[in-house]
């Protein structure tokens, strides 16, 4: 059985997902010692060529799989520390990974999830068709209701930041249902009482899991929780030994922040722009 890691990258004007995917993919390849492939579109590939990072992409990725770019109808707020703006959010084709992955068993990760330790090594051997992380933990210790639940009356929110699946008919059911939920997102918003304005894969996968697993909360196929920084926090420096330095936003007093750091730990840095600002130093680590 061949195993591998997959990332999606569809660039927008505001966020260079291609460079994020090279960093996250490069770290995953180095620290998990497995092949990594990228699913992307022609305009993102052209951008990589233009910005002269395509040769790095070729060295990092086992395969660069071209697919159609989803329509940009989804918009969300992009926060970068205290700054914020509304941007297109191209995330609607995540469920196609089941068909596009070249691996028998795949770990799908977000491009803002940086892997420094192999917490997944014990999970590859599990005979489970579909696994997803059941929670996040924020570095600053705070966590909101909507980080835990789909809505205040709905089941648990699972985090599609990390997914592991095989190519069985059983796992396909989860992904096919995610497609159906995405196409009927507003209908499911009425049932599960979430805000439908922005399509979120976390919600679609959580509902799919809820339905497929008999409308019950099943944690037996959970991946490890995701240690996260919010988009109000910033990655401000990367040391040559791999230590990441953060400026954490203080939830109580918005104008206040404090320093933190971590090393050899997987971390989900939602402030993507702060990853891009540190790209040179991060690329040196891959």
């Amino acid at each position: 059985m061949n195993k591998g890691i997959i990332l999606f990258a569809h660039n927008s004007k505001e966020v260079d997902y291609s460079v994020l995917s090279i960093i996250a993919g490069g770290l995953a390849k180095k620290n998990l010692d497995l092949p990594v492939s990228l699913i992307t579109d022609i305009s993102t590939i052209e951008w990589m060529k233009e910005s002269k990072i395509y040769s790095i992409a070729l060295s990092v990725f086992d395969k660069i799989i071209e697919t159609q770019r989803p329509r940009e109808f989804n918009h969300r707020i992009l926060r970068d520390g205290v700054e914020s703006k509304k941007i297109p959010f191209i995330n609607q084709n995540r469920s196609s990974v089941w068909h596009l992955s070249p691996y028998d068993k795949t770990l799908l990760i977000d491009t803002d999830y940086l892997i420094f330790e192999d917490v997944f090594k014990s999970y590859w051997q599990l005979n489970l068709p579909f696994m997803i992380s059941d929670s996040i933990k924020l570095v600053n210790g705070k966590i909101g209701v909507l980080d835990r639940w789909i809505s205040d009356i709905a089941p648990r929110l699972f985090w599609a930041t990390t997914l592991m699946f095989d190519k069985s008919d059983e796992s396909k059911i989860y992904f096919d249902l995610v497609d159906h939920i995405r196409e009927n997102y507003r209908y499911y918003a009425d049932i599960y009482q979430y805000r439908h304005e922005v399509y979120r894969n976390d919600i679609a996968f959580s509902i799919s899991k809820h339905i497929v697993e008999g409308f019950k909360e099943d944690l037996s196929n959970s991946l490890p929780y995701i240690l996260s920084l919010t988009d109000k926090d910033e990655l401000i420096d990367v040391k040559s030994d791999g230590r990441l330095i953060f400026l954490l936003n203080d939830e109580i007093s918005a104008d206040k922040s404090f320093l933190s750091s971590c090393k050899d730990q997987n971390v989900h840095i939602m402030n993507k722009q702060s990853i891009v600002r540190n790209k040179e130093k991060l690329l040196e680590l891959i």
Partner: protein
Amino acid sequence: MDDRLKKALEFSNYQNALSVQRQLLKEKLNSSLIYGYNGGIFKVTESLISFVQFLIDNDRISDIPILDSNSNPILIKDMKEFRDSILNVYFTVVVGYYSEYEKIKKNRTIEKLVEL
């Protein structure tokens, strides 16, 4: 600003940073204590180690099913080998945790604490 308040706020910032760094170390400890065996996922804890030793002491040493962290029954073919593996995981991880914990305890400024 009153000097007393300034010092208190500086110390509060340090305490905040210290608490986050300790929490991060705990997260690292927790994820490193996960051990996969024969299709099961075990969190290596003192109680797991004691339970496994208890089974060995009572001659339950081969082909014994026990519950993993997700309450799935997992067959342990060789209990002694399993005990040695989880002990090895436990001590490797906890020794690393101890040395990192001692390091942050000694750092009395935020800059040193986060290794800026």
